[in-house]
Each structure stands twice: as C-alpha cells, then as structure tokens.
C-alpha cells in the first residue's frame, strides 16, 4: 500500500485529519515527527495545518529548520510529492520550496468558512483527478492567509500555469490575484491555504450538492497522489 507521511510539528493541529484523509483515499498514513530526520520510506508527504511553534517569528519560519524538513526539501528536489496545507503552505514558502509568503489577512480577522475554489492546474501530483476550471468547496480557516509575492513572481506563476487554485466569489484574505494555492515548476510540490483534508467524508465536510455536510471535494487531492504514485 502506498505510504504517505504526515508531519507533526509542535503546534500542528490537523495532522490526524490529514492522516484520516489519506486512509479514506486508500493510502497508508505514516506519522512523521518534526525532530526525526527520517522519512521512513514514505512515497509522499503532507505538511498539515495548525500553528507550528506558535507561529513565533513568522508563520512556518521555525518549522523550516526542523530536522525532518531538510529530508523533505531533499526528497522534494528528487520529485517526491509534497502537499502543504495552510500552515504547511507557510512552511513550504519559508523553506523556499514555493515562492512568495503569507501575511496577516487584509481585514485582520481570523476567517473560518466554506470556500469555493477554482482548480486551474490539473497536472500536479495532487490535482490530476480534478477537471480544469472545476469549482470545489472546502473549509478555509486562517489568520495569516494573505498570499503575497512581487509582481514579477506573480506574472511568472500565472505565465507558467503554476496557480493551482484561486478563490471564487470572495477573496477571503486579500491574497494577490486571488491566489489560494500554487505549485513548483515540476508539479510535485503544492501548497494552499484552504483545507481539503476537512472535506473527505460525508457527514463531516462542508455542505454539498446532496445536502448539508455531504461535501467531499477534498478527497481527490489524496486519490490523485495515490494514483500518481502507482501510475
């Protein structure tokens, strides 16, 4: 069975949800510890959401120096799929695996809502089971979620098709050009602020077409990477 590592830093909140999403998609979740410089032979890694190291210094800034991160940076360079969700996305930018950074939401409030996203790149390891332009609904919850980068970087991201998700309906944090998620040039590293791992099982996700809490739009992140790895 395909093994997907889920990293726990001090202050990580959503590691269990991410592990559960991996299991529901048909993979085997493997708990990875921040202080353990060993990926235990996993085939892919999820950096989950939360407040690693209390967001001290900057969100994700201290986590970048955790022993497990140097292993992840090396493995990502060799093509291993890596997904950063929320705080995990912040860690990926601090680790320079993805460009740009996140600052406090423009309206200064913590935001927690069901958010519609458009899927704008279906060639990454984590999005190949979506259709281009598809709208999906997953929970969003953050304080420091405003994606920023200089204009040249933003132009490059858009020109190279590396914007993977964009907010639809409302830009919930002031992110530049409505960007919710991006990928690296190779397409194996993806980061986004919203939380697909919270929309993977009927009864526990956002409202969906079949009724309240039936939304499972996040599950295909995890089936995508499982099929990418075996295919």
């Amino acid at each position: 069975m395909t093994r997907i590592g889920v990293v726990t830093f001090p202050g990580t909140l959503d590691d269990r949800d991410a592990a559960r999403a991996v299991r529901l998609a048909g993979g085997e979740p493997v708990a990875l510890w921040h202080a353990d410089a060993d990926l235990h032979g996993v085939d892919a890694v999820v950096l989950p959401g939360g407040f690693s190291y209390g967001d001290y210094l900057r969100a994700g800034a201290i986590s970048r120096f955790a022993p497990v991160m140097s292993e992840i940076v090396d493995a990502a360079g060799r093509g291993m799929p890596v997904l950063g969700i929320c705080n995990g996305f912040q860690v990926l930018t601090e680790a320079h695996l993805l460009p740009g950074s996140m600052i406090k939401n423009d309206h200064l409030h913590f935001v927690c809502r069901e958010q519609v996203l458009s899927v704008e790149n279906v060639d990454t390891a984590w999005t190949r089971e979506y259709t281009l332009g598809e709208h999906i609904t997953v929970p969003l919850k953050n304080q420091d979620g405003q994606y920023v980068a200089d204009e040249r970087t933003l132009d490059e991201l858009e020109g190279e098709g590396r914007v993977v998700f964009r907010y639809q309906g409302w830009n919930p944090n002031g992110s530049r050009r409505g960007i919710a998620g991006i990928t690296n040039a190779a397409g194996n590293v993806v980061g986004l602020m919203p939380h697909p791992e919270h929309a993977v099982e009927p009864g526990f996700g956002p409202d969906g077409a079949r009724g309240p809490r039936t939304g499972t739009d996040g599950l295909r992140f995890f089936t995508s990477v499982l099929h990418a790895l075996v295919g």
Partner: protein
Amino acid sequence: MGRVVVDVMPKPEILDPQGKAVAGALPRLGFGQFASVRQGKRFELEVDGPVTDEVLAAARAAGEQVLSNPVIEDVVAVYEDTTESVGA
C-alpha cells in the same frame, strides 16, 4: 557582555495590516496627528564578549537569513545597543 539590535520592517510595497489597524485606533485615543503607522520587529541579540565587527556581520546575516523573510520584510538596521549594561 554586549548587545546587538536588529530592526526588521515590512517592505514598503507590502501593505501592513497591523500598522493600519494601529493607525485606525490612534485617533480614537486622541492621537490625531499621525497619518500612518507601520509595525515592525526589534530583535536584541546578546553576546558574551564585546560587539565586534564579526558579531555585527553575523547579526546582519542572521537578520537576513532567519529573523526576516526577504519576500515581505527588510532588515533596516543592525547596531550595537550601548544604552544600558546588559544583565545589570
């Protein structure tokens, strides 16, 4: 004992939501004379010996590589703090 101060500020082109909120609160407390506010960070790095040029260079390097994120912040000043004796 010596102490080095590293000042980090949000880049001028980056909107500073916290500074904006502070600027909005000041007039409500009677401080109407301030047109805008930007909020940054001050780090105090202590060393066991004197503050040498090498110490200052290391503090600047730490400021640029760790204490700030060059995407959103600038190191605006690195200097020895001589205002009071450390650990007194």
